[in-house]
């Protein structure tokens, strides 16, 4: 059995580590992780069993390992560049390089789905996982859900972009080349056909778990990935049960929701909350790993009873989200451009006149009661617009000590022209 190291470690490699039976020839002994996934790796991997190296320690690889497993780097072009030299060197030193393709995509999927839909007539619940924050969260949840459903003796089909989810448990191997992103084109079709084939065998399953991964379904960059799985499911059957699985944004109780629900209003029956959420309530958006217990509490706060929510609850939620969207539209339009000094805008002369007695007109323009900084910005921009006066010229005056009187004189001569 060959001793292998995963380099660079990405979270979707975790099932490979946790399911060693997938490949009988390899024994994964270590990983080499980017800083951003170190914490995740250290949390989820038994360090007694595996060694965890920082990305920059890749030099240790040839000493300890016979093979290096390379994940798909399609979404990490920079990483592909960074690892290319090391992998080249390892290949030259005789280390076996195993490239694992975890991303699949096909421009031909959509036409085929319609064909599939007409043949697909089973009334089975569908769980749709929504990819919003982090794919590793979805994968974890999918796998844990699958385990839960299997405990109930339900037959489960898992569709996700990891090759270890259930639809295509094969590990695709390719000889690593200098161009790591170059993958034989027939690979995608193979995977695609497996996917559709399994769907056609849907009567073997009680539940289908679908990961709404953009890598799987996206036909181009302009398509909203969250919409695609729903489109597919709509094609399959309009009366399925939807369970939404989401990472949450607690900051405003669900930025996720508004994206999702705006596309599927009225079609959601239940909610499942993932374990990574974005907390943006502090101003900065921060990814937060939460326990399932907390996630459940969050879900129940959002929608009442957990895990099965009534349609009316969801409809209420949808209504509130739609309301939020409308509020946002309004917010955007509230600053619609109006011609300066027309309508409600105050002429700049009036700002300068205000209630200042003549004797005080030699006061600095930023003295209390004359102009606030933003008002002066408005005055400057208006002068620029009206007379074409360069802002820098006005700033020079400001630096020298700008008074109301001086600016009025300046305006009366239209900037001295």
């Amino acid at each position, binding site marked *: 059995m060959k001793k292998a190291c995963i380099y660079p470690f990405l979270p979707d490699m975790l099932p490979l580590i946790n399911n060693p039976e997938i490949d009988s020839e390899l024994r994964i002994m270590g990983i080499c992780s980017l*800083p951003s996934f*170190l*914490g995740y790796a*250290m*949390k989820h991997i038994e360090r007694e069993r595996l060694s*965890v*190296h*920082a990305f920059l*320690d890749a030099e240790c690889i040839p000493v300890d390992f016979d093979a290096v497993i390379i994940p798909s780097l399609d979404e990490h072009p920079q990483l592909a560049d960074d690892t290319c030299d090391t992998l080249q060197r390892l290949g030259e030193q005789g280390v076996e390089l195993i490239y694992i393709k975890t991303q699949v995509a096909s421009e031909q999927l959509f036409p085929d789905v319609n064909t599939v839909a007409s043949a697909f007539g089973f009334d089975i619940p569908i769980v749709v996982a929504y990819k919003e924050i982090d794919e590793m969260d979805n994968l974890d949840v999918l796998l844990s859900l699958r385990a839960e459903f299997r405990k109930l003796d339900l037959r489960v089909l898992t569709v996700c972009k990891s090759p270890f989810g259930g639809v295509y448990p094969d590990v695709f191997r390719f000889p690593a080349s200098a161009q790591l992103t170059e993958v034989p084109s027939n690979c995608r079709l193979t995977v695609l056909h497996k996917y559709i084939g399994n769907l056609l065998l849907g009567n073997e399953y009680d539940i289908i778990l679908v990961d709404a991964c953009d890598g799987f379904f996206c036909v181009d960059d302009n398509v909203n990935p969250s919409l695609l799985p729903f489109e597919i499911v709509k094609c399959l059957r309009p009366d399925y049960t939807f369970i939404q699985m989401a990472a949450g944004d*607690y*900051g*405003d109780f669900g930025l996720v929701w508004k994206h999702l629900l705006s596309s599927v209003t009225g079609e959601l029956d239940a909610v499942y909350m993932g374990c990574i959420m974005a*907390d943006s*309530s*502090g*101003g900065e958006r921060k990814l*937060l*790993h*939460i326990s399932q217990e*907390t996630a459940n*509490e969050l879900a129940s*706060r959002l929608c009442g009873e957990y895990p099965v929510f009534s349609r009316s609850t969801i409809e209420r939620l949808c209504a*509130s*989200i739609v*309301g939020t969207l*409308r*509020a946002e539209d*309004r*917010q955007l339009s*509230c*600053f*619609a*451009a*109006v011609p*300066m000094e027309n*309508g*409600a*805008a*105050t002429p700049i002369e009036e*700002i300068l006149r205000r209630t200042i007695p003549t004797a005080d007109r030699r006061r*600095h323009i*930023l*003295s*209390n009661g004359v102009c*606030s*900084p*933003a*008002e*002066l*910005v*408005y005055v*400057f*921009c208006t002068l*620029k*617009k009206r007379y074409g006066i360069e*802002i820098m010229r006005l*700033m020079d005056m*400001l*630096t020298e*000590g700008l008074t109301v009187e001086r600016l009025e004189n300046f305006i009366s001569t239209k900037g001295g022209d």
Partner: protein
Amino acid sequence: MNSFIKLLKLCTGYYVYDIGRNSILRVNEQTYNALRELMKNDGADTTDLRALEGIRELLDAGFLSENRPTQIYNKRAFLAREYIENNLNSIILQVTQDCNLRCAYCPYSGDGRFDRTHSNKAMDSDTARRAIDFLVSGSTYAESIHVGFYGGEPLLNFSLIKTIAEYATERFNPKRVNFGLTTNGTIMNSEILDFFSTYDCTINVSLDGPSHIHNKNRRFAHADVGSHANVVRTLSALSERGIPFGISAVWDLEESITEINAFFSGNDLYTNVNIEPVLTGRIGTGYAISEENEYADAAETVQAMLWYVGELTSMDEQKLRRAIEPITNIEKMLVPRDTVPDVFHHAGPCIPGSLRLLVDTAGNMYPCEKISGESTVMQIGNIDTGVDFEKISQIMNIGKLTEKQCKTCWAMNLCSICGMWADVNEEVFSVESKLKRCDFIKNQAKSTLKEYVILKSVMEVTA
């Protein structure tokens, strides 16, 4: 009509800030005046005003609601455990309470009513190690780690800093560990320079400007002389060794900001300078801003705002970004929502300890280094006994203290009051102290909101 709104009449037009929806709307003069009449709520018949097209449109769209929150409660409170048990990434160790300077504006040099006094207490290595162990257990998901050393003057306990840096590097391996400290720059030797060269350190040195300004406030404890010459020597030594550093300057409001700026911009040694005005709010010192300084400060704000609206380019965007921070902060707070929530807590409180957990010399834990070490109400645990999540919940729910006022406060979405402002070193939080701060915050929020709306309008027009 008692809509939960605030009306703004500005040079760029008429606006309504709908607090429930957290949205700002531009309205015409007629609608504005009608709303002003309606808000008088003096019992007069307002049917005609309500029928105005502008008002009706807003009402139909769900704005102008009269609802207020019915309960003040911080819905994020339950997240505290998640943050502290798994998502920490930094800790600040107060390695000593001693300092060799007695700066006039330092909270440690104050009268101790709100803040702290210097003492010779120092953290021992066992406490420091346990603090690091605490961070190890709580930082599962952190990509990298920050350990800050705080004082007094932290370099007075350099031996501990060195020990802990070694220990933390080993404990967190292979994660990247950054160490940070702010020093008064009077203690420096080759051993310390070697340390800074060896570890990933973020060093901030305090220097207030030219010698007569710096020495006015930053004076040695043992002899009443200024420390400027010592600090400049330290900066030169750091520079010679190629060790990067930043400069923290406290602006004594009575001193010329123009002169301070000229000092820093006239020397290549000073490339990363952050000038902050002296905090007069909590130390009760009598620094008052001069008219000249007020003008210079405001002129800099104008420059930053012109940059913000896209009318100026600048080489020093970092500085301008800092100057515009109140505006960008308020922008972040203005996230629209569909209605005023029933359960609400004003903005302000962080999740105590999640961002800058401070462990003092005795191992007591506080939300951040701004909190007085004498505080009882803000102490959130101890290295030995662990984190007191009940206390954290109380701090996060500081709004309950003033529930009646908070429920109807127009600035609830824009507030920045945390428990610190209700802490007067007594056994319980002080309502009076918090309300005193409320007035200041409301004035500040109103002023910043107005500036923000003007700038947004200018941007719309000039786009």
